[in-house]
């Protein structure tokens, strides 16, 4: 290597680095018609029924498939679009006839799959059969709406499809509008099925057999998904955005930089602090929607001493540093669930404020009453996968509990192990979050407080009175229903096996020229309502 040639090469290299971008005409055009979304984690499948399909995979499925019905929209308190769980609207089905024992759907006659095949009732049946048969999450979710057996799904004629009920369940209709019962191209799937894989699970992992508003143009696993609009889509108003690019940018700092520089159009997945700061900037729109039926809480294992004692649990509830958590962990990006007037239910809404606030004197008195005037030692565990919230939160809780004599060691559990640890149900105290898709208080309580002891009843709480109220609420209506809901909320607040802290927000930041964002219960982005420019 000669010195002179070295200098020459490096000089040429430096010139290359700073050379201006070569913006072709076509590229500038493409930029205006394309929505660029930057996210943290990539989809792992194109098939929502696939084993372990993750949340980003739900987004792919939601935008590329039709369902029979969808939900209407309303404006939330801040004037932003919000799906409306009380309003079911047509998607592939144009109308339906709901009877006590069945529901009959009339299908759109001009709807076609992406490959041009007309969509018929046999495709719907095949898809529903698949969802209740393949096991795992899709089958479980179908069951939540009492959709359990293939015999329930009947092809009446090419454009008429009937679902027979096995029991009267008010969640059956809403469950047909969730992301799981998608309509798939049965002929195309069968062509790619094998004897050992009759539902073409393997093929569908990498291919979409769908007829929805967007088609997947390119999928580079772990890197990006590129969509183009399906111009033949009939099941709703034509989407305004022609192309959508979803790129994975692992570093949160860079996602923010891309937004601020105007290079990316939209992002979820930023730390609360960034959202709090972006909110004050005039060049971006930030929308924060309270996540329905969700809360972040401190759970105590009631099967273990000393948390089997209700006085100890109440002492903890009076000792938590609520306002500090709101200010320095969430930066105000959450709805407080503490400091209400008392521990009585305030109506048929969930989550709602309980009556606890930070009152150390009261907490100390309760500890003494419970027989622990000098406190005790315990551990508080959290999921490292959500460390940006959980770590500062548990540290504040630790400091605060120390003041009433509870010495809590912090136990950080890697994301991959968290589920396994929850299943074991032996952690004494945890910081955790839960949210349910279907926005009914009894749905939340069924998962989180019912004595059936599901994974999400992380406190192993069992109370026959409460179970009876939850079961009643699932099938009752009117005054009886309201009494049941108020009843179990009162018990939850009084017995306090889990202390609600706050209701998290689903935050999204986007460029000012992006409009039409709508909040969905599945918390994924619906590209179909968005517009740009």
């Amino acid at each position, binding site marked *: *290597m000669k010195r002179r040639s*070295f200098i020459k*090469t*490096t000089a040429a*290299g430096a010139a*290359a*680095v700073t*050379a201006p*971008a*070569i913006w*072709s005409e076509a*590229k500038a055009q*493409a*930029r205006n018609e*394309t929505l*660029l979304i*930057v996210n943290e984690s*990539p989809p*792992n*499948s194109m098939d929502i029924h*696939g*084993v*372990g*399909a*993750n949340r980003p995979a739900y987004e792919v499925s939601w935008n590329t498939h039709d369902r029979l019905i969808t939900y209407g929209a309303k404006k939330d308190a801040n004037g932003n679009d919000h799906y409306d769980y009380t309003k079911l609207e047509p998607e592939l089905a144009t109308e339906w006839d709901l009877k006590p024992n069945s529901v009959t759907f009339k299908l759109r006659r001009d709807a076609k799959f992406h490959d041009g095949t007309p969509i018929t009732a046999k495709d719907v049946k095949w898809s529903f059969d698949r969802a209740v048969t393949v*096991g*795992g*999450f899709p089958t*479980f*979710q179908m069951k939540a709406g009492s959709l359990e057996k293939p015999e329930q799904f009947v092809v009446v004629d090419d454009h008429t499809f009937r679902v027979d009920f096995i029991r009267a369940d008010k969640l059956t209709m809403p469950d047909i509008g969730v992301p799981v019962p998608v309509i798939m191209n049965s002929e195309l799937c069968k062509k790619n099925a094998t004897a050992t894989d009759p539902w073409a699970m393997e093929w569908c*992992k*990498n291919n979409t057999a769908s007829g929805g508003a967007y088609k997947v143009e390119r999928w*580079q*696993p*772990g*890197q*990006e998904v590129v969509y183009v609009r399906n111009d033949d889509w009939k099941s709703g108003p034509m989407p305004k955005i022609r192309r959508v*690019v979803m*790129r*994975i*940018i692992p*570093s949160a*700092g*860079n996602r923010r*930089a*891309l937004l601020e*520089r105007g*290079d*990316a159009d939209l992002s979820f997945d930023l730390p609360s602090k960034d959202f709090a700061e972006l909110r004050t900037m005039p060049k971006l729109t930030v929308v924060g929607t309270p996540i329905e039926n969700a809360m972040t809480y401190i759970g105590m294992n009631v099967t273990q001493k000393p948390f089997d004692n209700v006085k100890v649990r109440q002492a903890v509830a009076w000792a938590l540093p609520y306002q500090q958590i709101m200010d320095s962990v969430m930066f105000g990006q959450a709805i407080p669930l503490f400091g209400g007037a008392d521990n009585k239910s305030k109506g048929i809404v969930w989550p709602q404020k309980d009556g606890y606030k930070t009152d150390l004197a009261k907490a100390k008195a309760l500890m003494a009453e419970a027989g622990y005037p000098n406190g005790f030692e315990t551990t508080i565990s959290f999921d490292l*996968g959500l460390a940006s919230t959980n770590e500062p939160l548990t540290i504040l809780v630790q400091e605060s509990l120390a003041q009433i004599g509870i010495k809590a060691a912090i136990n950080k559990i*890697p*994301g*991959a*192990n968290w*589920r*396994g640890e929850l*299943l074991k149900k032996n952690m004494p105290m945890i910081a955790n979050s839960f949210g349910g898709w279907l926005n009914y208080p009894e749905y939340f309580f069924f*998962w989180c407080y019912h004595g059936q002891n599901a*994974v*999400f009843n992380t406190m192993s709480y069992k109370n026959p009175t409460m179970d009876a109220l939850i079961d009643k609420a699932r099938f009752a209506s009117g005054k009886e229903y309201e009494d049941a809901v108020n009843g179990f909320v009162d018990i939850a607040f009084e017995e306090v096996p889990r202390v609600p802290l706050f209701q998290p927000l689903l935050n999204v930041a986007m460029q000012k020229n992006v409009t039409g964002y709508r909040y969905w219960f599945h918390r994924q982005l619906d590209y179909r309502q968005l517009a740009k420019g």
Partner: protein
Amino acid sequence: MLNLLLSRLATAIPSIVGVVVVTFMLTRLLPGDPAAYFAGLAASPQAVAEIRTKLGLDKSLPEQFVAYVGDLLSGNLGNSLSTGQPVVTEIATRLPASAELTLAALLLAVFIAIPLGVLAAVKQGTWIDHVCRVVTTAGVSLPVFFTGLLFAYVFYYLLQWAPAPTGRLDVFLSPPQHITGFYLIDSALTGNSETFWGALRQLALPAISMAIFSLAPLARMTRGSMLAVLGSDFIRTARASGLAPRTVVFTYAFRNAVLPVITVLGMVFSFLLGANVLVETVFAWPGVGLYAVNALITSDYAPVQGFVLTMAVLYVALNLAIDLLYGLVDPRIRLDS
């Protein structure tokens, strides 16, 4: 030469067998239950058990190992659960991305470090020697992710000289036709200048941040080794015989000093290839490091095993290449040792 090659390859086999066994055992000994992880949010114990059977995790360890080795022999590294793709395809698409970045960084580092080291040795104690010392100390004490973030902040966010750190190509460019998997080479071969410039612009910042880090060991080794050679008798003789200083330094001293530099080069290369996960994270670079770390976080066995195995094979190949290179550079080592 052939004997050397064969004996080297023979010694590599036990280490690869060892790696296969160790990776298999390690990934199983790690805490964490992939079945619980992949069963999803609303999983019941039955659902978790179903997934466990589906993944073959309910079998005994020896059974799992036999199945694993059988797959391995047929060139199947298994499927990644988190991306849903076969590990072989994933590594095959991601390795060129890492290799392109690493090679670019290494070339850049060599072009700067070796002249710098040589100059520092020749003009020992002068300002250029001090520059060399400062540069190497700074390079080694600035972690790659820090320089990466700093560069992204300054050159992209503040100055707008660099393109957005969105991976190997701007969002609105399509990847070039696949020939080698190296975007620069592929786009040059197909004459796609827009993609070539796009790929080069994306490559610049991550390559420079990695080059700064790998500069230090190279420059220091060059300087040290040159100093030793320059102080030796045959150089004094060459100088006394009135040879031109340029001939003395390059023809006699440098050729003799380059051997330890090659050793360090090999080490730096293998280190960079495996350890550039931080740069890959900062610049959204779709390389193998990022892939392996993500797989570890989700207890996704197959990619972790595939990654470690690929790296082991690469290390073996690299060491072999370096051994052969020694022979080319230094005739004394060419003996059929």
